[in-house]
């Protein structure tokens, strides 16, 4: 009846997971009660859960990602504590079977359920606004994508309460991840969760490639798109090309585990090298899927807060596309130590180094964007400058790792761990923190507290360096990764410093929550009444904060590379807005519960597959399919926003803008 699922799956005799489970369940219950008492369920259901509005979906992605950041960080601090304690004769507080789950969960969650959702969340919120349009190409599909990602995140976290998670590392290399060596449900949780969220990611890629290629404001030619849109396009193209490889690879491993196939097994002619190649054909572009939109965020931030257009815009786009293509030619550098010949290693080593060229160009272009500018040291600019310092070091160590003979001695070491955290934290996390501060007023109509924001930045900046610089040193001393126990007592002080660094990052995360709560409390003093709090240059600052559901009453006409800046300067010079356009009623897509229901069935189906509850798996699959059919047969899919409402809102916006621009023209 319930397959492999018995009461043994609940960790009654394991205090750490048991207490954690109870605390999380209690927190969920308290939140649910709080929402019920305030009567917010209807609002959440109508305005968020079933929303087809790209802005709301973007916000939901970011919320999901921040929750997963907390979970992933909890894993991180547990690992750091274990490595600080389990030295010499001590075994620390985590036995191997527990520790191994934690580092596997940390990697899986941080990449798939923190970094990916937060980048996709920003793409959702920002891209249509910057393109000057009202929504993405497939609004309901967009909602489905979000809920499928959430479904994957849910299953990963259920493994905490029911069963176990993978003990194989975040890429589940066979043969260790094969049934012969990992018979438990851990790897199955990993596989099923990633398959479900992978579908969501692929659909997102389809959606954004279509949106950016086909739906732009009049006059917004490719070479007038903001750099963030370009990097989102590059990132979506990479997703579209890379995620099907991941899905196929994991599907083969599932066939091995569930149906006794022999793709990657030791026996029956299987070959685990094949998995290593395939997973990195996805895995290396994945890095650029994350970091390219991050580069886009820095481009927006540096340009805005230097009060200048981005230096070398076309060069920047060329560099982005060069990285996009090169990223598919370098996967083998993840296993130079497999013993391929010198020619193969050298070719892939040099190909990897080539990525350093366009990346270096980007750094210089940001540098020259500041040159001749009026740099405002706001919170996003702190992150951008902090990034430029941190990332060049990450690039240096990356090129060292791309040098095959150097990789032979630092492969899989703590040096590698430090390197990829340097590019992911220094590159991606700094960017999303900058983007969070930068676009928060656009999303909610008030700015975040500046002082606390700077405190958060310094926590991340100092915490990161304390946490990872010692790991570079240890890596050079021969320390490898994923050690539940540290053999050399002389490493202890370095690991202790790393723990302190992680704790400081933890303080930064706590302060982020404090900053949010404090800013909400004092929101009346920090309202963004103009829609343009940073003196921005792209179209999202043209509309109000928060923007109306339909973003723009009339799609803006774009002249030149900096659509909004040009418009703003003309208006300031002439001290008047452009003539009032001819307003029309606006058709917008209806909200739809399809995503929530499909993800519900997908979660049920996934859980059933993990536990071998076949009848339930079939039920979930049929349910999900039935919802799609039901959705396809819908009669109504749009609602009309009446002309009066459009006009009333638009005139109000014009009045505000006129006043604001008038003030600006007086101050010039």
């Amino acid at each position, binding site marked *: 009846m319930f397959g492999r699922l018995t009461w043994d799956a609940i*960790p009654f005799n394991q205090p750490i*997971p048991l207490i954690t489970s109870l605390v*999380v369940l209690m927190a969920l219950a308290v939140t649910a009660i709080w929402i019920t008492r305030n009567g917010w369920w209807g609002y959440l259901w109508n305005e968020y859960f079933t929303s087809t509005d790209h802005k709301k979906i973007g916000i939901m992605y970011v919320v999901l990602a921040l929750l997963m950041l907390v979970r992933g960080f*909890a*894993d991180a601090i*547990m690992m750091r504590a274990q490595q600080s304690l389990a030295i010499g004769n001590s075994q620390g507080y985590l036995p*191997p*079977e527990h520790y*191994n*789950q934690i580092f596997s969960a940390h990697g899986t969650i941080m990449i798939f359920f923190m970094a990916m959702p937060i980048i996709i969340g920003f793409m959702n919120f920002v891209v249509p606004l910057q393109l000057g349009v009202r929504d993405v190409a497939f609004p309901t599909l967009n909602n489905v994508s979000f809920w499928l990602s959430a479904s994957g995140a849910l299953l990963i976290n259920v493994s905490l*309460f029911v*069963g176990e*998670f993978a003990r194989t590392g975040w890429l589940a290399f066979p*043969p*260790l991840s094969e049934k012969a*060596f990992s*018979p*438990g449900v851990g790897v199955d949780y990993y596989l099923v969760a990633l398959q479900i969220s992978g579908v969501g990611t692929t659909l997102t890629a389809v959606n954004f490639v279509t949106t950016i290629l086909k739906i732009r404001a009049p006059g917004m030619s490719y070479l007038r798109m903001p750099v963030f849109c370009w990097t989102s396009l590059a990132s979506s193209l990479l997703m579209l090309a890379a995620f099907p490889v991941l899905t196929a690879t994991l599907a083969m491993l599932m066939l091995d585990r569930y149906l006794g196939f022999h793709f990657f097994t*030791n026996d029956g002619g299987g070959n685990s090298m094949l998995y290593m190649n395939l997973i990195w054909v996805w895995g290396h572009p994945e890095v650029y899927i994350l970091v390219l939109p991050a580069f886009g965020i820095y481009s927006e931030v540096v340009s805005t807060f*230097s*009060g200048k*257009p981005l230096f070398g815009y076309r060069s920047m786009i060329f560099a982005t596309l060069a990285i996009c293509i090169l990223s598919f030619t370098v996967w083998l550098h993840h296993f130079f*130590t497999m013993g391929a*010949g*010198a020619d193969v290693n*050298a070719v892939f*080593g*040099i190909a990897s*180094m080539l990525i*350093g*060229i366009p990346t*270096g*160009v980007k750094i*210089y272009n940001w*540098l020259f964007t500041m*040159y*001749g*500018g*009026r*740099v405002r040291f706001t919170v996003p600019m702190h992150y951008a*400058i902090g990034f430029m310092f941190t990332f060049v070091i990450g*690039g240096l160590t990356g090129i060292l790792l791309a*040098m*095959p*003979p*150097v990789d*032979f*001695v630092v*492969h*899989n070491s703590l040096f590698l761990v430090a390197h990829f955290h340097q590019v992911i934290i220094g590159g991606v996390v700094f960017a999303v923190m900058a983007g969070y501060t930068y676009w928060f007023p656009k999303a909610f109509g008030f700015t975040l507290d500046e002082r606390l924001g700077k405190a958060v930045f310094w926590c991340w900046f100092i915490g990161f360096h304390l946490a990872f610089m010692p790991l570079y040193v240890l890596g*050079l001393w*021969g320390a490898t990764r*994923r*050690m539940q*126990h*540290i*053999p*050399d*007592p*002389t490493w202890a002080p370095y690991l202790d410093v790393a723990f302190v660094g992680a704790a400081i990052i933890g303080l930064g995360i706590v302060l982020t929550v404090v900053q949010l709560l404090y800013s909400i409390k004092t929101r009346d003093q920090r309202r963004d009444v103009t829609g343009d709090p940073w003196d921005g240059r792209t179209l999202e600052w043209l509309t109000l904060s928060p923007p109306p559901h339909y973003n723009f009453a009339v799609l803006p006409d774009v002249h030149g590379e900096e659509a909004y800046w040009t418009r703003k300067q003309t208006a300031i010079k002439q001290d008047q807005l452009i003539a009032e356009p001819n307003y029309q009623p606006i058709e917008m897509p209806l909200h739809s519960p399809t995503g929530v229901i499909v993800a519900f069935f997908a979660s049920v189906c996934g859980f059933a597959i993990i536990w071998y509850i076949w009848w339930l798996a079939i039920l979930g699959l049929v349910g999900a399919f039935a919802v799609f059919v039901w959705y396809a047969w819908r009669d109504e899919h749009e609602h009309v926003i009446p002309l009066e409402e459009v006009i009333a809102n638009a005139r109000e916006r014009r009045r505000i803008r006129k006043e604001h621009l008038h003030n600006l023209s007086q101050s010039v």
Partner: protein
Amino acid sequence: MFVDSLSGRVTGLVKTLGKVQRRMICAASASVFASGCAQRGILDPVGPVASAEKTILINSTAIMLAIIIPTMIATAAFAFWFRRGNTKAKYRPDWEYSGAIELVVWSIPALTIMLLGGIAWISSHDLDPGKPLKSSKPAIHVQVVSLDWKWLFIYPDQGIATVNQLVIPQGTPVSFDLTSATVWNSFFVPQMGSMIYTMPRMTTHLNLQADKPGAFQGLSAHFSGDGFPGMQFKVQSLPADQFAMWAQGERGQGGALDAKAYAELSKPSSYVKPITYGAVVPNLYEAIVAGRQPQNPVPPPLHNPPAPPAGV
């Protein structure tokens, strides 16, 4: 060659720095632990492969720092000078392109990468793990098998085998054939240089040498399951005559590594104390690679039994 001469010059420049840094590390650890200078992995090479790799590591770092440090200084300087409050700085709100600067910013990283790419090409060929080392002495041959979770070293020419203890003659090239009897691992002795994967049903090749006598730490550098941290082993580098004596002395001593002993040995265990076998069944390594020896005679579930779930 151009690359060689340039990297040679960089080496000279960096050597002094390296010495200072090393003395600082030793001083720091000595003062903290009062235990002299501990082994410092790849920064403390004992053989030709490790030395060459350390040189490339340091030279490449120096070449890149030559670009990166000015970039960092420029970042700080630009950001500071062009701060909004500085009335002396000239505001150029429309300056967004300069062909000359574009040329320079593409050239700097491109030239750097051309130089480093040349080093990568040459060094990949010089330090190919499978390439035999140049030496007047014939290489000694060791077959390496990673088991759950320990290392088996077979000396086919000496007819002996050891577990978690690799004894080698100093100043003599060692030619390794490596495989795994279970999952992937990576054979790594940081002070001797290059690591290489051990993979089931496949053989990899590695050539290393220790020029100094001493004991060096070895480990698995690829996660292989619950007993992974216990896969440490000791490398004992002995003068050539002592090595010959050791091999002679062990021969016929202790147990024999036959099918039964191998079955016993391949049961999962970790933190295993060194073992020496005075005899080895012929072609054991070849049998393991071919999968003829029962791969995992114990029931597989013991490798990774279901466990309680992860903490948050």
